């Protein structure tokens, strides 16, 4: 029997490799696995098949409003336990919209690496390793 990889899985949803590239390094070098999606459709698929522990979600994707990923998965088991929004806008309304859609936090790009590191542990509870 192959041993299951118990490292937490992070799904990064953003259409720019400029954003996903450094974040992949950040999470992989700190003991997590990473999956990347560049659109609403592929993010929904990735949630269904990979069941990530944390989703970082860009709010503006090529095929529409990033927050609709949460809307589509609402009430299903594929909805990630924690979602954090990534945005280019820092006004109160954007923040309210993300929170209303169910995001735990809202990060302004460029994603502050210190904050990410500080919060990662609370966003991704270690997986309960089954005996």
């Amino acid at each position, binding site marked *: 029997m192959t041993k299951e990889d118990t490292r937490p899985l992070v799904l990064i949803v953003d259409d*720019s490799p*400029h*954003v996903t*590239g*450094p*974040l992949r*390094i*950040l999470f992989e*070098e*700190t003991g997590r696995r990473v999956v990347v999606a560049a659109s609403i459709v592929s993010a929904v698929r990735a949630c269904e098949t990979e069941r990530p522990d944390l989703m970082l979600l860009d709010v503006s994707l090529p095929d529409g409003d990033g927050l609709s990923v949460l809307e589509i998965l609402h009430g299903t088991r594929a909805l990630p336990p924690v979602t954090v929004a990534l945005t*280019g806008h*820092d*006004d*109160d*309304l*954007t923040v309210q919209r993300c929170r209303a859609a169910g995001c735990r936090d809202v990060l302004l*790009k*460029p*994603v*502050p*690496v*210190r904050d990410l*590191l500080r919060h990662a542990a609370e966003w991704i509870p270690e997986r309960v390793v089954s005996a």
Partner: protein
Amino acid sequence: MTARTDESTNALHPSASVEARLAALEVAHQQALREIAELKGRDTLKTQFLANISHDLRTPLTAIITHAEILREGILGELSTRQHESIAGIISGGRRLLEMVGEILTYARGAANQLEIAPTEVAVGDVIEQVRRLNESLVARKELCLEIRVASDVPRVIADREKLAHILGNLLGNAIDFTPAGGRVWIRASRQHEEDRDTVLVEVGDSGIGIAADHHELIFQEFAQVDASASRQHHGTGLGLTIARRLVELHGGRIWLESELGHGSRFFFTIPTQHQA
């Protein structure tokens, strides 16, 4: 001497009839309208280009900053002191560039009437404090004395917190930039009543180099700087005040200044307590 002339070009000739002259005037008027429309179209294209290009400049820039921050945090290995210094340089240069690109984007959106405000109830004193903290290290480095006075009766305003911080940040940034080391800079807020409405009056003042009366209008224009020479000491986009004015006006307020060359500057703006859309 000429036997026949084009009516439209020579309609103002003494021999032309009043009718012909009126017709010529109409032709010239239509021509001018067409030219204005074309210039406006080009201006819109240029603004759109600015907005697009600054958005596209942001993304690779954020990659540079994030990569550098990952290095700084030591995730990819411990750094020597010198490596730390070098990476800190990449991060601060990158952040400064990002700020300038952001200013150009805000300006272009403003010029294209694409700037919107998201008003909530805001305590002006809190925003002043936020901006003070952001500028703390600059103030300390130039050994300036920064004094803040918010009158106790200043009411809350209905405003876009982020944009209010942007206005204050641009004005305080200028006050710091244009005041020699050891000088004084201040921010004051008080309650005002003007034209049967309540407003909050904010003053950002400094004991710095001042601005000659001739330039009071000019500096609010896009890209305008009093010293625009290549050898100028101060480097910036020249958009800070254009943006500040746009944002104040979006809130229904006014912005103006009192200043004399060599005698410091006082910039004032008002924000109505009730937002009128």
